[in-house]
């Protein structure tokens, strides 16, 4: 069995991010790290590898700055890692590129996280499933093999603290919920070795993607990025509920 895990590198920037001049994404500085949610997808894939000997391939779409998350995935135990060299932010485009990259790979299961900590669109996984014509399940909290080789038993989170169990045909795409498997620390020596070895990258033209194709899909534009406005005048209120309610109503009406 083969699993492909889609990962994203997110920046922990010191400087505030700004939109690119053409609005096609954002400019960031500093190091990039594995998006936390995708880390869980990777851990889940590696758990399956441990139990069933599946082959795990890690894929990312990103500039050279993002390749280190692939080193991490190899150090943790992925068998192969591929980076598609493209600096894209729009989920439509990223999922399109991924769908092309996956054409050359064989897979029974595709795992992704539920969202990225920088873009927070929660779209790439679902959109990729749709483009590949695969069944997809969002916010998966548990997975097991169902009756027969080609079925999966998948539990996903619903609102209100409920869970739903589904039987899904393989191949399928699952967006795993954070916390599905415990995160492990990347063994440093293996990471050093992976960094030494490097990871292969493929260009968009390798995948047969043209600029026009991308331009056609570019439907959003980043205009502005603002930090969360923090008000330092936090006040602690005390009193019984009635008094508290009165104070709060008073404050709200003053603010309006």
């Amino acid at each position, binding site marked *: 069995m083969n699993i492909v895990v889609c990962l994203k590198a997110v920046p922990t920037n010191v400087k505030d991010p700004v939109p690119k001049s053409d609005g096609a994404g954002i400019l960031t500085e500093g190091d990039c790290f594995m998006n936390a949610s995708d880390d869980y997808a990777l851990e889940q894939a590696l758990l399956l590898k441990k139990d069933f000997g599946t082959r795990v391939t890690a894929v990312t779409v990103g500039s050279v700055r993002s390749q280190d998350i692939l080193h991490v995935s190899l150090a943790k135990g992925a068998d192969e890692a591929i980076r598609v060299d493209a600096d894209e932010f729009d989920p439509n485009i990223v999922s399109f590129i991924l769908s092309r990259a996956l054409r050359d790979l064989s897979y029974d299961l595709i795992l992704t996280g539920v969202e990225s900590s920088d873009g927070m669109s929660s779209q790439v996984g679902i959109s990729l499933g749709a483009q590949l014509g695969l069944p997809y399940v969002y916010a998966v909290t548990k997975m097991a093999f169902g009756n027969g080789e080609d079925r999966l038993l998948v539990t996903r989170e619903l609102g209100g603290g409920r869970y739903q169990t589904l039987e899904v045909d393989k191949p399928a795409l699952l967006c795993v919920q954070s916390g599905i498997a415990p995160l*492990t*620390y990347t063994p440093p020596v293996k990471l050093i070795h992976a960094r030494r070895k490097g990871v292969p990258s493929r260009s968009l033209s390798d995948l047969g993607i043209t600029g026009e194709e991308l331009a056609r899909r570019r439907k959003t534009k980043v205009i502005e990025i603002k930090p969360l406005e923090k008000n330092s005048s936090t006040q602690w209120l005390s009193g019984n509920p009635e008094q508290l309610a009165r104070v709060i109503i008073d404050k709200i009406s003053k603010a309006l």
Partner: protein
Amino acid sequence: MTPSREILFNIDVSEAMALYLLMTIPIGLVAYGLARRVSRWKSGRPENRVDQIGHRIWNLLRVSVFHGRIVRRRNTYGGFMHLAIFSGFVTLLIGTSIVMIEADIAVPVFGVSFFHGNFYLGFKLAMNAAGLLLIAGVVMAFYRRLVLRPATQQSSGDDLLLLVFLLVLAIQGFALQCLRLAITRDPWAAWSFVSYPVALALQDVPVETLTGLHQLNWHAHFVTAFLFLGYVAYSKMIHPFTALANVLFRRLRPPGELDPIADLEQADTVGASRLEHFSWAQLMSVDACMHCGRCLEYCPTFSTGKALRPRDLVLELAGLQADRGGLFSGVLGEEANSGRYRWGRGAERELIGGAVSTEEIWDCTTCAACMEQCPVYIEHVPLIVGMRRNLVMEQNSFPPELAPVFTSLERLGNPYQNVPAERAAWTRKLEQPVAQMSEVAASGKSVEYLFFVGCIGSFVPRNQKVTIALIRVLQAAGISFAILGKEETCNGDPARRMGHEYLARQLAAKTVAKLNFYNVKKVVTACPHCFNAIRNEYPQLGGNYEVVHHSQLIAELIASGRLTLDAASSLAQGKVTYHDPCYLGRYNSVYDEPRNVLGALPATDLTEMPRSRNHSFCCGGGGGRAMMKEQRGIRINQERVREALNTGAQMVAAGCPFCMSMLEDGIVGVDAASKLRVHDLAELVAGSLQTPPPRS
């Protein structure tokens, strides 16, 4: 008549010669034992320990002949005991050699004799004194082992047997002389001031009896010496060789500098999971241990009932090495941590998990109290960090609470999961703004000091107060300085001491690049861990700066009159005690400046804890321990707080943010919040500033 005596009196010369030849057997055994050890040492990694020869030789003399590290103010009993045994034994050994030279070389080969006249008389005097010293030392040793029984010392059969050997040898020597004096009526007998009275008493015994006894005793003395010598290589009596070798080849780098891993990127294995992964000098050092137990005296883990006892860790390594080297020195006693050798080969065992447990490895606070105490310069911390390196980087095995710390250091550049963008958030609380390096550089100006704030001083609210206090002090003194602000990241020390050399090096390299980019010349820091790393370890990465701890800078500012302190506005009132941070004191020998600062505070009265200066007792927070759970034994910080409480002080002055938080924790733990407070030196000085800093 010239004073002299017949050598080999009453003994058949050819028999004596035959017996002397027999002595080559134990001597051969010693040589074999040493050769086996040397070959084990050679299996270690290379390390240069043969530089600065002159300094090394002088140090060797200082330690051995002058007992520089053996007799110390806090180790007088053991020190003088050793001095007595050492000087007695060595003098007697030299004396015996002189007699041998006269009899076997000078007279037969060169036809010269010197064993007469004043030399002979002086010889008699010296040998009697030496014998007396030896016996006195051995008696002191017995008294300590059997009666005083300090907690840091456990006596094994080996320890006691050696003392018995020495005592018997000395007594036999005296007996020989008494008998000979009594038989020959030596006219210069009085010079042998110990033997003389006994010889007088023996004069009435028939000469035949005396001669018989003399012969018997001579042979017994020979047998004892024979056995003793044979035993040397397989007991702690090997220490004159191994310990001196270790003193000669000791590490001369600053104690606060851990050696980097040279080929980290290329290495297939990192740190130490096998003996061969240590350097040859480290392998040699563990053989130098003679179980004196001094390393335990101020060791926080030993004193609070944890698994780690530095002496036993060293002995376990030595035992493992002896087993591998075919020396039959075996493992330690049955119970773990018994601190004694057992005869017989030890079981096959791994280094980590076998000879040394992971608990021991993680217990260490890297406080260096053991290294400071060890008379033969054994360095425990690099041994322990070496094993941590392997555990962390290769085996991915460490206390689970460290995983988020490592991840946070990697991603966010601080151990506390704080966002880097918030690193300079504390500056909002400043009355007077502080310059950032980026602004200074952009405006083309320069500042004298970079204030390296550190993670704890940047993010933890209690320590932010210290940072702000120090800024006020620096501003009041008109120091030109700037901070890195959001650009600052962890200096790497916690990762390094926790064994994550790779991460530590990344962090350190980042900081060095920043500092070099801004062309920083002088660094001031309020954290001894930042201080030690930047001062002692950054040169490894091409970062050379003049680094001062804030206590040094403040002391200098007070001394030069740039800061004036006011009694009335003082926060520091009454009795204060000072806690020496390990990374400031023991690792960097900064003891006086913090005390000078406290001395300059008008209304305070400094009172010392029993364990202070280089004998300070760790707060329990070093070596990354502040970020690990303390699960075994009593809490180290509470132990220290009790010591501070006992001085009657109302305040502990600290010079380290980690010590501060450990001590404050400890105070809460022993429920003493109403009796004891902790303040950093900077806070005390800021609270006593005469004039508030001018507002710009």
